[in-house]
């Protein structure tokens, strides 16, 4: 498949992470964190997701670059199958 899943997935987690980090920063110290035991869950977890997303993006891009360098794959003749 020409679409490496790591790219859209990495992008999604990067965006979600960024949103959470931004929101976390803007609401730092607010009342809403009483629920999460005073921890700014948005900031910390957003950061983790951001890192994960970037890592996936990197892996995906690297793999795509590597595939782009290979010679085009030979067209394989349809395999014989028994019955249907």
């Amino acid at each position: 498949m020409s679409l490496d899943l790591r790219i859209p997935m990495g992008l999604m987690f990067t965006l979600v992470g960024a949103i959470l980090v931004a929101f976390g920063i803007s609401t730092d110290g607010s009342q809403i964190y009483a629920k999460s035991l005073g921890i700014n869950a948005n900031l910390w977890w957003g950061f983790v997701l951001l890192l994960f997303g970037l890592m996936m993006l990197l892996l995906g891009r690297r793999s795509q670059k590597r595939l782009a360098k290979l010679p085009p794959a030979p067209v394989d003749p349809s395999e014989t199958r028994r019955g249907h």
Partner: protein
Amino acid sequence: MLNLTGVDWLIMLLYFVFVLGIGFALKRHMKTSKDFFQAGRALPAWICGLAFISANLGAQEVIGMGASGAKYGLETAHFYGIGAIPAMIFVGIFMMPFYYGSKARSVPEFLRLRFDEKTRALNACSFAVMTVFSSGISMYAMARLIQALHVFDGLFNAMGWAPQGIFTFSIVLSAVIVLAYIFLGGLTSAIYNEVLQFFLIIAGFLPLVLLGLRNIGGWSGLKASVPAAYMHEWHGVAHASTNPMGIEIIGLGMGLGFVLGSGYWCTDFLVIQTAMASHNMAAARRVPLIAAVPKIFFPFLVILPGLLAIGLPTPHTTTVERNINGMIVRDTTVVPHNVEEGRGLVPAKINPVTGKAMLTASGEPLLDYDMATPNMLLHFFPTGILGLGLTALLASFMSGMAGNVTAFNTVFTYDLYQSYIHKGASDRHYLAVGRWATVGGILLSIGTAYAAIAFNNIMDTLQLVFSFVNAPLFATFLLGMFWKRATGHGAFAGLISGTAAAMLHHGLTLPIEARPGIHGGWLAVVHHYPSDMAQNFWGAIFAFSINLVITIVVSLLTKPKPESELVGLVHSLTPKPPKAHDVWWKSPEALAIAVLIMAVAMNIFFY
């Protein structure tokens, strides 16, 4: 209770955009029916592996395991350890060479190649019906949960729409999104979104478990807050009366591990289709093994929230009196009745007529365990990450639906349409049929979801029927792949008698605290079981055994196919694949041993 802000909606919207975007991006790769139904047989092992376990991580797992954790404790982990892991190892090492090597495009097609047309027809018809109903049940459960959590209430209020429409809105929303991305991208789209969902579940539930554990005082705090039996997987399994689930070790081992676990993981096209989408045989064999690794560790993510929910202190109506500058202020936090009557964060079920908590046979309030995990989310997550948690829940429902729909459209197009309605048409024709089968499948699912409202017990009834059909299946495949003498007549007779045996067993037995009806005993009550889990397991053992015996007997009385036709389909007639691995630790066998060691270690740790 639930206050969703813009951030939460943004995250949810982002997820839907990506899900549809992936579908659109894949559309131009869907040129042949093989691309659409089998993902071109070109996907890497890690993607198929994660999709394999994710296909199973639908609403049932996420909510249901949380509920079981709250009700039974860590013994629920047995579902993973005993049921799934050995089955996954078995299917990867021993069965995948036949599934993948036969080049069958679906599980029923494999049965056609190995046995005969009528066995395929039986399996295809029952599977098609079951899978579409399962999809409908997922849809229904998701809409119900959205209602219960009041997710869309704020939105509907703001738009001025009637809240009665929330159920329909949820159903239509999930149907349209799943339909769109499957229609466009087929199995590949379903698989990609299943992998996305896998990571989302981790993203949504790992912080929940961490926060919950921190709140309750770590692992030792959790141990102190719940009954001791909840914290041990294996204590007291020697006898039914000494463990929370009421099962003894033979019932547990045989029923859960062997029959039910294998019946699902080794034969259900919903999961097998993800392995069959791999790009080669070695990858296909590795897929269930790769999936087994997160499967060993997932108990933490989905059972612990249930355990934590029960262990946390039960909220009560409290009044805090404060003296502010000489003025006495009393702050009363009122806790709803059903929450007060519950345990921890698990509310009691309320009788809608009397307004009081419903009681079990022993006079205790009947708890609504399904709310354990959702209530945990609402309790610990502030807005922002809450949107993420809810998105993870929705994602698991939707990918459950998607997996069922792709399994349906494949079985319908290849095993029903192409085999019986219109043979020999062009590939483009079948690709189009597949797309329309997707639409049909979704419509049928919607119908099921609405039927579930009208008929209260439909979900339970359907699950029951599925268990009747699934229980004997594994015996058929086992004999088919490892005994060359098994014949089509044998397989057919075995399947029918196995299902009949399951039904008979259910009709004649009853769990102790239940009344005859949907729980069993509708023919006569011949035997009592300590719990309905136990009844379930023993029924499965019974069905499996009957199927095995009948298949063997009838096979010996009928003529088998010539051996030349069975090459590649039966173990003894298939040449061993050459050992083409560069490093020994990449081979499926080495991976299987590693998985087994990990699984045993976990079980010892939680003894």
